[in-house]
């Protein structure tokens, strides 16, 4: 196989097969049709389509932002063409049930598939991935009729979906949304309001767009307890499934973004009377499940979505790293410290230790991030299909606590890898002649959307590690201990000991934080907590990887071992000062008066 600059198939194979042993999932009834052969074939297919149809227009779509002509969104034609190939190959249906046209692919394999597309072209791949998230939510919470109406066309890639939560004034705090949904005599609702930042909110790529919209039904409880979830299709759907009347949801404007430019990002107006379905204004919406439970339904799908965002951040970091590595092997500049003879030919920059430092750091971030994302996806499979109820419960708890990390850690460190990739390119990295600046711009979104970095910190420290009387943190500590125990007697006993000590510190610091007696103090430095916990978790997964590589020889495995050592010696030492700061219940930031700035 040709080595690709999009993603490393070798690493993916190692993680999926040698480490996570995904083939064993085929023993479970849901995945009985799958085998090593089909899994490999699906990943072959994904990687080929990603490399041949998505990567080539990544730059073009970035340079030609979506724009509006006569009320219609214009995109470069390559986007539609690539999405057609994607849909024709059946990739839109991945993990769905067979009866809905799906392939019942394990989550971990489906995520490996999506990572290829995210690495090749994050902008174009957002359309199908939002659509899949939308379909999964419907399958979990909508009525059978709603599922039958909306999911199969999405699984076939004919209709696309969106997630419409945010509003201009309400992003992190969805309690403050103001979009209203009023019940009609026929049981449908009419929506009025404005949604901001809606990715894929309008375009001509699909026959229909199915918006999943959060709105409030008047008279309901205040705050998040009064939020309901609605299906609002761009075009109403006739009983026979055909496209009907135009619904009253319209594009109010496109946002012009730093990256992810191939994905249209929209301000949408609902119920402004631009269209009058049934003869009157108001966007027709159909309630999903029960009133006032909308946010619960949304959050149910949050783990998967957040793992997906984390993997997207890893994917961008990964492709940046591979480009930097390729550049460093071919770009010549300067001579070794010990051989300054000007007559000697200059060396490839990878020969300089400082360049290798950046590359090795990046390798440890992106391979660590990929391990983290796939591990979490594997947990989703455990949560859904493990035979034993106790195993499912354990997977669920571990997933809950790992999700904020799986979202935020790669968003932070994948971006650092993109930063290093620019640095390795020197001046060329700062130009638009090389793709690394785009990867950086694209990846800069990931700490912002799907719950900002700050919100993930609050989620981890404020909710996840204390839920169930601290069950989340306990399960995590047990999982880490199970790995460190296996490391006894290997070359990795010292890394295991470091991890044991850091985990014990993390548990102790968590208790100290929660004994502060003032939640403001407890949560003031939650982002630091998130980052410290993230490094411990990824350190643990590096130990997992090198244990899986025990006894294997060759460059690939030696590279894994050196990256694990790098993480142990350079990265884990960052954690202790962070934990010390947290343990001191430092209030420097909290007590900074807003007037003092």
């Amino acid at each position: 196989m040709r080595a690709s600059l999009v993603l490393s198939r070798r690493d993916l194979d190692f993680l999926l097969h040698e480490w996570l042993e995904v083939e064993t999932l085929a023993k479970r009834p849901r995945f009985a049709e799958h085998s090593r052969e089909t899994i490999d074939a699906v990943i072959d297919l994904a990687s080929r389509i990603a490399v041949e149809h998505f990567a080539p227009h990544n730059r073009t779509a970035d340079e030609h932002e979506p724009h509006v002509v006569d009320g219609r969104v214009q995109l470069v034609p390559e986007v539609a063409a690539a999405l057609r190939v994607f849909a024709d190959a059946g990739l839109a249906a991945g993990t769905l049930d067979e009866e809905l046209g799906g392939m019942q692919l394990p989550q971990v394999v489906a995520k490996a598939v999506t990572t290829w597309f995210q690495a090749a072209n994050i902008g174009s791949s957002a359309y199908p991935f939002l659509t899949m998230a939308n379909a999964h939510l419907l399958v979990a919470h909508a009525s059978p009729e709603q599922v039958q109406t909306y999911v199969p066309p999405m699984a076939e890639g004919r209709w696309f979906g969106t997630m419409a939560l945010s509003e201009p004034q309400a992003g992190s705090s969805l309690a403050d949304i103001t979009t209203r949904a009023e019940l009609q005599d026929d049981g449908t609702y009419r929506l009025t309001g404005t949604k901001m930042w809606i990715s894929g909110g309008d375009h001509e790529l699909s026959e229909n767009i199915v918006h999943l919209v959060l709105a409030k039904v008047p008279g309901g409880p205040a705050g998040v307890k009064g939020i309901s979830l609605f299906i609002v299709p761009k075009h109403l759907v006739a009983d026979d499934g055909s496209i009907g009347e135009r619904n009253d949801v319209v594009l109010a404007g496109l946002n012009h973004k730093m990256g992810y430019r191939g994905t249209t990002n929209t301000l949408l107006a609902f119920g402004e009377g631009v269209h009058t379905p049934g003869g009157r204004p108001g966007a027709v919406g159909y309630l999903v499940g029960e009133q006032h439970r909308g946010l619960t339904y949304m959050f149910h799908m949050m783990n998967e979505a957040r793992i997906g965002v984390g993997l997207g951040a890893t994917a961008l970091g990964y492709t940046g790293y591979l480009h930097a590595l390729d550049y460093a092997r071919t770009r010549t500049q300067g001579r070794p410290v010990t051989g300054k003879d000007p007559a000697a030919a200059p060396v490839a920059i990878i020969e300089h230790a400082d360049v290798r430092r950046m590359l090795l750091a990046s390798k440890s971030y992106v391979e660590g991030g990929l391990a983290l994302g796939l591990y979490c996806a594997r947990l989703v499979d455990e949560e859904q299909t493990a035979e034993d109820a106790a195993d499912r419960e354990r997977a669920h708890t571990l997933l809950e606590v790992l999700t904020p990390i799986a979202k935020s850690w790669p968003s932070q460190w994948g971006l650092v890898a993109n930063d290093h990739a620019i640095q390795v390119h020197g001046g060329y990295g700062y130009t638009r002649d090389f793709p690394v600046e785009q990867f950086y711009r694209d990846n800069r979104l990931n700490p912002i959307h799907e719950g900002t970095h700050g919100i993930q910190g609050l989620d981890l420290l404020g909710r996840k590690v204390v839920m169930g009387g601290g069950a989340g943190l306990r399960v995590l500590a047990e999982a880490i201990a199970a790995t460190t125990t296996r490391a006894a007697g290997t070359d990795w006993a010292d890394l295991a000991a470091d991890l044991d000590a850091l985990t014990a510190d993390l548990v102790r610091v968590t208790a100290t934080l929660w004994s502060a007696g003032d939640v403001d103090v407890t949560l003031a430095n939650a982002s630091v907590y998130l980052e410290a916990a993230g490094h411990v978790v990824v350190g643990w997964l590096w130990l997992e990887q090198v244990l899986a590589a025990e006894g294997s020889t060759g460059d690939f495995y030696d590279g894994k071992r050196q990256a694990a050592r790098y993480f142990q010696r350079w990265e884990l030492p960052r954690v202790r000062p962070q934990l010390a700061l947290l343990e001191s219940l430092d209030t420097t930031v909290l007590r900074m008066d807003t007037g003092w700035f």
Partner: protein
Amino acid sequence: MNIVVLVKQVPDSGSERKLDSSDNTVARASADNVINEMDEYAIEEALTVKESQGGEVTVLTVGPGSATDAIRKALSMGADKAVHVTDDAVHGSCAVQTSAVIAAALQQLEYDLVLCGAESTDGQVSVMPALLSERLGIPHLSGARKLTVEGTTVRVERQTDGGYWMLESSLPAIVSTWDTINEPRYPSFKGIMAAKKKPVETKSLADLGVDPASVGLATATSRVLDFAGRPPKGEGVKVADEGDGAEKLVGYLAAQKLV
């Protein structure tokens, strides 16, 4: 319409390829083996003909056990079944010997149309369809860039450097295809799952009635004596621009007979 597509597994032309130093045969065990790229066009054409005319597409491969990967790929693109001839005695066979094996396998199948790629990217001998035509006594239409079947007639546009020829013959016939003939489809998700259940019949030389002594390196009609890689690219020529850069460049190109 019964269509048989000849498919070969070859080392990926995009990664490093080697010959085995002990006998100068293609080192398959250590290579990244893929379906011969040219064969994908033949498979696509077979599927297109089947879609318009009905019938069945059978994949025929001669190769080691690992060649099942290439077979699965063809099946996941949409072929219906496969025959895999595998026998250690075949190792090192020349094109003439291999054609005897393929012809024997074809004789056990029903076929109206045999399709194959115009060449394989490993040996690049490009004589297989002609050899099979001779052995089977059927017409050979080579290098097709377009193919149509009407009743028992096959027509092709045969691509040449200067243009094309229109050829026609009766079926059964063997047609080799160029990469200009179509755009091969990707396997689909559904195709991948379905491929697992499609029949693959494995045959040995004994099953085909071929004498093992008649094939293999020992009795091959030709063998590779020596080989060398393309010499590495030399240093480029640097043209220093001292106000006369354009002239120097044109002079260089002219000297190389490039303009």
